[in-house]
């Protein structure tokens, strides 16, 4: 038993079996590649919830293909007896435990991700100060695209000990906040009312979701926060810009001066 029974376990592997297993693995890889290319392309042509459902199905389908491949390949290579399984998984455990500890950590976290779904493709998340849309969920890591079109790779293992903020949590409802600082000594109720009109008349607003305008006093300015939902999470930058521009127009019309945040902070 000095070789943990590997010799007997793998003695039945023939070149035909290897070729067959290789063919199955290649077929599975092609399938995974197709799933990862075609479904996001299809989702890109659709809007709303259907897009999110399709994107979320990609990692699940990939996991399903991987599991089916393992289930198919193992009996081709070795006789699936109890002893053989113990030998194979024991060897795998040792290898993963010592040589690829961090990698295995991420792989397991990746499987947990698919089950717990702290983020899905299409979600807008913030991890360690990085904010972006989840573009894909790989076996080891997820990729997010920031608002500045930078791709950031986030290992799933960060899940275990990092705070993660999810803005839309699998839906297409993402609250956005446009923030304005105004010179004090103006009619606050009127400005709140006018800012509410600004949000409702913006063509990018989901008017069937809550619209809230809050106000609070800072040392040198009145801080208004216009909270509303854009038609699509991907349009958050345009939405906030549009709200800010329209609100600035209202301020100009009402003769209320806007105060930049930097000036407020410096004061």
């Amino acid at each position: 038993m000095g070789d943990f029974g590997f010799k007997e376990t793998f003695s039945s592997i023939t070149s035909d079996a290897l070729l067959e297993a290789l063919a199955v693995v290649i077929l599975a890889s092609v399938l995974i590649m197709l799933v990862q290319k075609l479904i996001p392309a299809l989702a890109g042509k659709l809007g709303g919830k259907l897009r999110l459902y399709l994107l979320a199905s990609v990692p699940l389908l990939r996991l399903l293909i991987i599991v089916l491949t393992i289930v198919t390949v193992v009996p081709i290579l070795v006789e699936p007896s109890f002893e053989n399984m113990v030998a194979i998984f024991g060897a795998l455990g040792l290898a993963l435990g010592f040589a690829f500890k961090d990698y295995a950590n991420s792989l397991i976290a990746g499987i947990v991700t698919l089950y717990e779904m702290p983020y899905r493709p299409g979600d807008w998340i913030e991890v360690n100060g990085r904010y972006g849309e989840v573009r894909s969920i790989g076996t080891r890591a997820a990729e997010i695209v920031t608002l500045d079109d930078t791709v950031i790779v986030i290992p799933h293992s960060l899940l275990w000990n990092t705070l993660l903020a999810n803005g839309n949590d699998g839906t297409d409802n993402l609250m956005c906040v446009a923030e304005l600082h105004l010179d004090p000594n103006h009619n606050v109720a009127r400005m709140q009312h006018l800012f509410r009109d600004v949000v409702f008349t913006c063509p990018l607003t989901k008017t069937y979701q809550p619209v809230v305008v809050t106000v609070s006093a800072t040392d040198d300015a009145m801080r208004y926060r216009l909270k509303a939902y854009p038609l699509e999470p991907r349009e958050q930058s345009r939405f906030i810009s549009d709200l800010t521009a329209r609100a600035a127009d209202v301020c100009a019309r009402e003769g209320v001066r806007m105060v930049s945040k930097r000036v407020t902070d410096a004061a």
Partner: protein
Amino acid sequence: MANDVVEDHPYLPGGLITLDQWKTPETSVQKSIRGAFRDILDQLRAGISPEEQAFQSLDDLPMLSGDRLREFAPEPDAALLAKVLVDQFDQLCRDGAGHREVSFVVAPPFSGVPEALRCLSRRVLTPPDNLLMTEQDAGRWWDEQLSGGDWAIPELADFWLRHPAGLNLLRELFARIALDHAGNGMVGCSSWCWQFWRQYSPELSLAPYTLAPLTGEQLTRWLDYLASGDGEQQVTARMTRDGLYVLPAPRQDSDLKYSSFNQDLATLARGNRGVALAIWQRTLRARPEKDDEDSGKEAVLVAGRRCWVAPLDQLSLPSVPASAGRQPSHILHALLLHDGLNTEQLALATGMQKPDIALTLDRLIRAELVGRDQASDVYRVTPLGYPAVRKNLQARGYPVDGF
């Protein structure tokens, strides 16, 4: 409310109902699933074959046109609808349901309500040229308009603009109606406009009524009444493919075999009479696929004028062009919210530049989704394009009406 639904009339099947009673015509699960798949395919196809966006007939049979079309599928008589509406409101008042001085009818586009209200023997209020008003100006304007006796507003959506300065006119009117300070009036309001204002003012409660959606059976009665009136000259319509009957409305003693066409049409149009009529007009044909189908026995059973109806799957309705941007959807949504706008108003409501609006409108017109009223220079969504537009806007997250 026991008196929510008033007496039926062939011109207004189902009568007036409250908004919460409205529901889409029923359809089978199989047809719903098939429809959902078709919608998804349409969305995908829109990006592949943009030249096939406009209406198309997939058969070679001659369509009815001109006088013959007006004979078999005439436009509804607005004056008659107005009379029926007034009768129904009177009955609601007698039953104690209409307790406000201002009667409110919320209806989806193409329902014919604005045209009917223009036929009333009341003072018809028209919107001011400039819809951007201050609160004070809006108050003064309504003071002048509401002081001269009974009035009617055919389409409330004409009285506002989705712009920070374009809301005051309607806000002021709603406040007056809520306090019963607006005199005796009758208001027609597009369901899209109503939806926006309900979201803007959740407290808004003007007890509006709406037209009942047409089920397949009611649609048959309505189309029959449009074509035959009181029945002096009966119209017969049969399917081109299998000869099954669509019109006249089935009688109890009749042994004719009927098609499910009107049920499918009612579902496709979501019970909207204007949309259903527009599609109906496009399905009428001068002859069937095989001329020898008509046996002498059946000709004896049903006398009168006769036309043929192409199946709905032989029609390809307009679809919304695939676009990288939001501009077409913004314009379509604004047009529905306001029941039509000119280019200046579109620029104010959407925040788009006029050249961009012109380019997008041109594309939408070629796709038969939007039409231009030459007299008023106002652009409107077409009834044939409305089902696709509504589905597209809903899929893209826009607030849509409840009908």
